[in-house]
């Protein structure tokens, strides 16, 4: 079978074997604590393929550095970088650069040249330093194992094979679609295998760090979020514990199960860092949630907001964001909910000025003239707000 040519590699076992952990947890033996191999110094690309790949990525990173989508808050960036360094080790961390990018999707990646990109949608969905460590450990595993280079070479090889087979089929009048499809399936399986390896290595890295291994909850919430989205959109529910031929990642349920087993083995030792995570991300909550709240997926945004509130507490800013979510959807019962949420935000203290703005707008929509007082409070708290001229005009326009 041609597909067998692209089966899972033995790279991870070889790596673990090199540091004396070839007898991993699968055989039930009590493995010692994970010890990172000695750091050999900054890695340089080898060969024309890898040098070409790094050159392209260096250029991409230069553009990314100028992008207005990059979040430059120094506190948040320092926090994320510290978690990364604590997870992979300070020696390895020196070669890595972190960029937080405004994007509502749950994603992050680490490129072969050490560029690390974390989406704000990811930060909105995580609840602790431990969870962030698991994600960053996964991305570091791709970098350490040079998965992208291997994947690019595989894809080029598969592409070459596919082109030659297609030409052969034309010359011999033989159908080659099935063979080329099998090449693609093999490539996807290879990529899926890499993701599984990265998860396994991430578990080891977190185990060897000061953080608790806590990734099963992340994948559980991903499943619940997807189910909420499908319910809202009337889409067919899917099973989260099996993969199809087209899945280039393990299923979320498989990842949850793998990490749950690892967490059972490792135990609950290590720092969770929920309070620290909440404190570090609180100042940028509007940025982390802006695209979600003002996007098109109400169920997803509400699920992510509620899960953070239930895990880390409902701050005035978080209540205001949820109030805006309901206000923007704007059904009659949503306006009632929004008014309650804005009221809770204000009562909780330290609510952002947007809480008074949202309360005022909702009250006016519901025909309650008290909304003007709330909007006046908003202007007092934020006289230079972008929409201040519009709000002032509204207040000046009469009763």
């Amino acid at each position, binding site marked *: 079978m041609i597909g067998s040519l692209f089966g899972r590699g033995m790279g991870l076992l070889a790596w673990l074997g090199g540091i004396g952990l070839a007898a991993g947890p699968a055989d039930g033996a009590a493995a010692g604590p994970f010890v990172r191999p000695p750091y050999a110094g900054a890695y340089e690309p080898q060969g024309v393929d890898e040098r070409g790949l790094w050159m*392209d990525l260096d250029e991409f990173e230069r553009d990314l550095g100028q*992008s207005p989508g990059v979040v430059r808050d120094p506190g948040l960036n320092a926090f994320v970088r510290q978690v990364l360094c604590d997870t992979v080790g300070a020696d390895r961390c020196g070669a890595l650069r972190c960029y937080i990018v405004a994007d509502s999707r749950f994603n992050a990646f680490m490129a072969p040249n050490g560029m690390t990109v974390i989406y704000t949608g990811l930060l909105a969905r995580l609840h602790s330093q431990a969870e962030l460590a698991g994600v960053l450990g996964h991305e570091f595993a791709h970098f350490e194992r040079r998965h992208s280079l291997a994947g690019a070479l595989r894809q080029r090889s598969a592409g070459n094979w596919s082109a030659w087979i297609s030409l052969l089929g034309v010359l011999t009048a033989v159908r080659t679609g099935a063979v080329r499809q099998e090449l693609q399936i093999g490539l996807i399986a290879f990529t899926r295998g890499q993701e599984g390896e990265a998860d396994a290595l991430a578990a080891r890295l977190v185990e060897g760090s000061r953080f608790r291994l806590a990734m099963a909850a992340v994948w559980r919430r991903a499943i619940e979020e997807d189910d909420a989205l499908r319910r809202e959109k009337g889409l067919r529910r899917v099973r989260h514990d099996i993969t199809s031929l087209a899945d280039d990642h393990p299923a979320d349920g498989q990842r949850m199960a793998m990490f749950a087993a690892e967490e059972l083995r490792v135990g609950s030792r290590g720092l969770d860092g929920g309070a620290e995570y909440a404190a570090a991300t609180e100042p940028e909550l509007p940025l982390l949630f802006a695209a979600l709240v003002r996007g098109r997926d109400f169920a997803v945004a509400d699920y992510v907001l509620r899960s953070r509130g239930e895990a880390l507490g409902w701050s005035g800013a978080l209540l205001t964001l949820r109030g805006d979510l309901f206000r923007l959807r704007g059904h009659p019962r949503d306006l009632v909910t929004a008014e309650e949420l804005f009221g809770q935000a204000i009562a909780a203290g330290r609510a952002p000025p947007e809480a008074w703005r949202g309360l005022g707008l909702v009250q006016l929509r519901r025909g309650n003239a008290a909304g003007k007082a709330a909007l006046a409070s908003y202007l007092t708290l934020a006289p230079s707000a972008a929409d201040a001229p519009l709000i002032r005009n509204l207040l000046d326009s009469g009763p």
Partner: protein
Amino acid sequence: MRRVRHCGLLWIVRTLALAGLVTASPALAGWTLVPAGQTVVVGQLKLTPPTAWNAQTGSTARGVAWTHDGFELNLLEVTVTRSGEPLYRERHRRRGVGGVLPPQFALIDLVDLFESGFRAGSGATVFVIEQASPAKLAGLPAVEIRYRFSLSEDALPSRGLVRLAIIGDAVHAINFTAPALHYFDAGQEEARRIMDEARI
């Protein structure tokens, strides 16, 4: 991380390729010339541009899209949206729409609705309102919004100027967008003149 479409090198390469394909697509669209001084009717608005514009035919459901140098460099859209319709066509239609006009809405609501609709329609990952102020459109009360945005596919910062008004039973919007570097400043004066001189 979760979807290899966004994971590592493969995502970057595919994204760059897709961006190239998208920018190459205008050759497939139909175009007509709107001569300087010709009056064009969109919904209840009559517009008379002071210079000639290239108008894309059949590209918008309810309005017109004009450009001088290509949509990536300057884009003037005039749209008419009724209650229950989205201000901007959803990029991913299976996932629903954003910025749908509710049955009852006030001028102040147009700021949030425009942002939601524009984010959904353009896929902007960064959208910041610089100023929202009262204005006039065809002599009627309107909202003028100045904003900046960027799309997920590129690092180019862009700016926009939109004026929205409720005329009859529909929201009429004239929206000008262009890259922040040179093109927005070069084109906003004419865009503003078209908005100022629009009439019913």
